[in-house]
């Protein structure tokens, strides 16, 4: 089980901030494919991966990152703080 978190418009598009996902995916990219296959709202949120950023266990990484031993994956748009 992995905690999957969504922020900003990704959260709004998918309609929830956090869910637990049972997955056999070995990379973030595979997890995204599984989620997209679920429902239209996931398909919409993940349509353009270049507009998304991903963090694994609270560190920024990319969609090739492995999921072995990972507890938390988060998807969000590019940051706009400051």
């Amino acid at each position, binding site marked *: 089980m992995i905690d999957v*978190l969504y*922020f*900003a*418009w990704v*959260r709004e598009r998918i309609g929830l901030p956090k869910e637990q996902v049972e997955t056999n995916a070995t990379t973030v990219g595979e997890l995204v494919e599984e989620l997209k296959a679920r429902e239209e709202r996931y398909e919409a949120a993940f349509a353009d991966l270049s507009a998304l950023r991903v*963090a694994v266990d*609270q*560190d*920024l990484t990319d969609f090739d990152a492995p999921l072995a031993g990972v507890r938390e994956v*988060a998807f*969000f*748009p*590019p*940051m*706009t*703080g*400051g």
Partner: protein
Amino acid sequence: MTVRVQEAPFDLGAETNAFATGRSDAGAVVTFTGIVRDLARGDLDRMVIEHYPGMTERALEKIEADARARWDLRDCLIIHRYGAMGPGDMIMMVATASPHRADAFQAAEFLMDYLKSRAPFWKKEITSDGAEWVASKAEDEDALGRW
């Protein structure tokens, strides 16, 4: 070396005085403050900042440690708010103290450049027309290239 992520307003003057007062180990103190700007068309009702609790503190502490490794800093402060704010409200501040003015300036710019593009904050602007997430700027990502 302090990182604070908070919903409450902060007092820029009090924070700046607390940071700089009596600092005879560092002749140069630089601060940067980010303020909610009104929109060009003048109808910003409020700005809401979302963040990623846990990762935010972690990202800011890493950025601060990177700055301390690169420049001769005697102290460093980052405060960033989340939640709802109105035009003119202060969003965040950084402060750096160094014996050298160039170090204090460069470290503050570095903190801001990385904070903008690497700390998990997202701004949403709410106007009479509705709400819109602020788009990231290519120039903010490009700014990292100089460090």
